């Protein structure tokens, strides 16, 4: 059944609110630097996130070199390795992916896609970016303080995080915590904007159920972030106090190097609960925008409406809600009550239901579609494949008995890279190839793009697929070197070397990608308007790239959902959201009905 119910709703309610008032910059500074236009803020966010992401990428090379060729690189000490692991993980999850999806794509796409002229509080939005930048700078600063950055692992578990045996237990961990606190403050300022803009500042006719799924994904992820980050914020404060003032929130009575410390009576497990109360929703903060974006990419590039739009919306919202009650599946080995494990395993497996539903709907969207194998489409298909892969290993890890032996092995590393590392990054790439023409008015080079895609996708598989096996054999994670053991045999060593080579090649492909972006911004082939023939509002602006205020004299009026592709009877295979039903060109034979 072709879902054209949305088509029939031809009318639009009367305007309820006057037009949004725009802020106009008055000086060079407020126009280009402290800019309040969400599109500029988006690019600032995106640029900063990619820059710090490059640091995370380089750290991954160094780690891989050490794992693949132990005893070769004298500059990678065991301490340095732990510091690289920690910084790599934290940078990738928070400072790259969260910032890029919400601060970058959120800022760019929300006002454009819901038909607003800007965010509702542009000034606060601008501050949000600068505080984020400050957080990034503090994080980078921790590389240069005595003792270096924290080596506690991205989970920062106390007591070890602040004990002197861990590298960076002095200034490093404190800077990390402060940086996180700033990140959260900055994010909150932006996040409030995203939510209120989506809820209260849509254009005429843009009902919630006509919003593109990208917006639904970003919206739900932002809500999750606003509710999950508080736990991290508070634990950052408490751990800073533990470290600086000697309080004992998380610190039990403890002996360090034969010496009784002044700490006592705190609860390390409390930290784990707080961290994962944030940490699990964080996975979905990264994944939900990816879900949303990929739905739109698939639909546009397969010229077919998204299958089961309403189901998709409810799945996003449902996953978001469930993600708050599964956190302790990260703590099966923490010694908590076994009944807890039972509860959290159950909820974890329940989340698989809406998630699987989404995967079916994506596949069914492709079914009988007019699939164009453009770069965004390739990346979207690659996303489905990697995500399913990571999702299936997730089902294993969600069960207590299976997780306990696999916990803290390379299997876990392979799992979460598949599901929250590679999969969302693939969507980021697809989204950049998709929206770059809008943001810059130029196309990205296709040949370089193809190279980037195939190397990244196949390479990522070569890296992470064998890694599952390493985990089964028992290779632990966060280990600088394993040395001589009975289970480490030559094949495992050569497998490790192989993975490293693959990782370096994949890393190189990312440099090609960045080069492609830089060259295309200046010299790329000029893009035609709406090159992908998309229906959503961001492509219907007066100028490309959209100017200040996004739309022309009049804000668009929305008559239908964003998925009117290949509508029977229409001449074009797409009908933009803002084309009046009377203006839709009908095939002559269909005249009269």
């Amino acid at each position, binding site marked *: 059944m072709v879902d054209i119910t949305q088509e029939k*709703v*031809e*009318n*639009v*309610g*009367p*305007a*309820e*609110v006057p037009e949004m*008032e725009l*802020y106009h910059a008055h000086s060079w500074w407020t126009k280009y630097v402290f800019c*309040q236009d969400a599109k500029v803020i988006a690019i600032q966010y995106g640029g900063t996130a990619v820059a710090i992401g490059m640091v995370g990428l380089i750290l991954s090379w160094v780690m891989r070199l050490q794992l693949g060729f132990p005893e070769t690189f004298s500059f990678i000490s065991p301490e340095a390795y732990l510091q690289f692991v920690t910084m790599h993980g934290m940078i990738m999850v928070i400072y790259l992916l969260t910032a890029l999806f919400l601060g970058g794509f959120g800022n760019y796409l929300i006002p454009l896609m819901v038909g607003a002229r800007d965010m*509702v*509080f*542009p*000034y*606060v939005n601008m501050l949000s970016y600068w505080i984020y930048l400050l957080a990034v700078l503090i994080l980078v600063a921790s590389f240069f303080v005595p003792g270096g950055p924290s080596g506690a692992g991205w989970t920062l578990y106390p007591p070890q995080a602040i004990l002197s045996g861990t590298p960076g237990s002095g200034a490093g961990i404190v800077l990390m915590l402060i940086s996180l606190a700033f990140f959260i403050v900055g994010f*909150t300022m932006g996040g*409030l*904007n995203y*939510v*209120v803009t989506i*809820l*209260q*500042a*849509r*254009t*005429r*006719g*843009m*009902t*919630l*159920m006509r919003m593109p799924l990208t917006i639904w994904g970003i919206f739900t992820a932002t809500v999750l972030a*606003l*509710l999950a*980050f*508080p*736990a991290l*914020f*508070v*634990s950052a*404060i*408490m751990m800073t*106090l533990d470290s600086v*003032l*000697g*309080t*004992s*929130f998380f610190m*039990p009575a403890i002996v360090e190097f034969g010496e009784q410390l*002044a700490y*006592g*009576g*705190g*609860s390390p497990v*409390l930290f784990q609960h*707080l961290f994962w109360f944030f940490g699990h929703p964080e996975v979905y903060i990264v994944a939900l925008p990816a879900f949303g974006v990929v739905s739109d990419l698939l639909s546009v590039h397969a010229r077919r409406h998204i299958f089961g739009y309403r189901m998709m919306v409810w799945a996003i919202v449902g996953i978001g809600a469930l993600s708050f009650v599964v956190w302790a599946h990260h703590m099966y080995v923490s010694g908590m009550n076994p009944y807890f494990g039972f509860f959290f395993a159950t909820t974890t497996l329940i989340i698989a239901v809406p998630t699987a539903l989404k995967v079916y709907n994506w596949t069914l969207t492709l079914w009988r579609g007019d699939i164009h194998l453009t770069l965004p489409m390739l990346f979207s298909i690659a996303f489905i494949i990697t995500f399913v892969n990571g999702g299936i290993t997730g089902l294993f890890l969600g069960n207590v008995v299976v997780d306990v032996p696999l916990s803290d092995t390379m299997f876990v590393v392979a799992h979460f890279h598949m599901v929250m590392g590679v999969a969302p990054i693939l969507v980021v790439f697809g989204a950049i190839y998709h929206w770059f023409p809008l943001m810059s008015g130029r196309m990205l080079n296709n040949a370089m793009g193809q190279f980037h895609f195939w190397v990244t996708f196949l390479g990522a598989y070569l890296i992470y697929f064998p890694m599952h096996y390493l985990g089964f054999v028992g290779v632990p994670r966060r280990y600088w070197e394993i040395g001589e053991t009975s289970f480490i045999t030559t094949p495992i060593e050569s497998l490790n070397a192989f993975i490293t080579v693959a990782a370096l090649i994949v890393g190189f492909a990312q440099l090609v990608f960045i080069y492609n972006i830089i060259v295309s911004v200046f010299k790329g082939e000029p893009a035609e308007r709406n090159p992908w023939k998309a229906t959503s509002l961001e492509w219907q602006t007066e100028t490309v790239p959209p100017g200040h205020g996004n739309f022309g004299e009049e804000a668009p009026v929305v008559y239908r959902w964003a998925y009117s592709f290949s509508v029977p009877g229409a001449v074009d295979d797409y009908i933009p959201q803002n084309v009046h039903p009377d203006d839709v060109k009908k095939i002559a034979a269909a005249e009269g009905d």
Partner: protein
Amino acid sequence: MTEANVTHGAGPGDRPDGLQGVVADFASDQRAFKNVHWGKAMMWIFLLSDTFIFSTFLVSYMTVRMSTVVEWPIPSDVFALHMFGADIPLILIAIMTFILITSSGTMALAVNFGYRQNRKVTTLLLIITALLGASFVGMQVFEWSKLIHEGVRPWGNPFGAPQFGATFFMITGFHGLHVSVGVLFLFIVARKVWRGDYDVGRRGFFTSRKGTYDIVESMGLYWHFVDLVWVFIFAFFYLW
């Protein structure tokens, strides 16, 4: 603006009944919450987020209070004031709570007069609220310095579990910070109301959009929230 509204879900004619009507309303055109201005929507969502912050603080407090192996100090002794030749338990805190609740009342009145665009009375009530808030913070400073004098520190105290001082200073400090920020903004808003910024629609700070009395209402939400949080802190710290 000219098209008639016939079949769209937002039209009053065809709104479904009951729960479906609620959903249809929520999902309808342009705004999910009708007649809620942006500042108010933002404040509600911010407060929801802030609720999670304070809940995390209080849950952590309860957890460490249970995890510590040292006796917890007895609040009615620690928080007693020596007045009129006797130790009166919780007297200071009773006064502080009373003041804060009173300030909520004056704030509510300010919002009410703000709705009516009564410039003078709104200003006056905002200033009274701010002064009550400031005196709350002043008493908190007094309480802190008294405890510090008696040797209570974040890392230890003479009365019992070291977590007592740690949680006390952290949570009341965080709440006090909220009150202080509130006082500051109350003064700023009061000045703007007094100057008539909101009557002439002068461009405001933060958004550079034209000002309305709406901000008094958002301010009120914040203030009531801070008071509500205090009630919980009061119950958990002083009465448990």
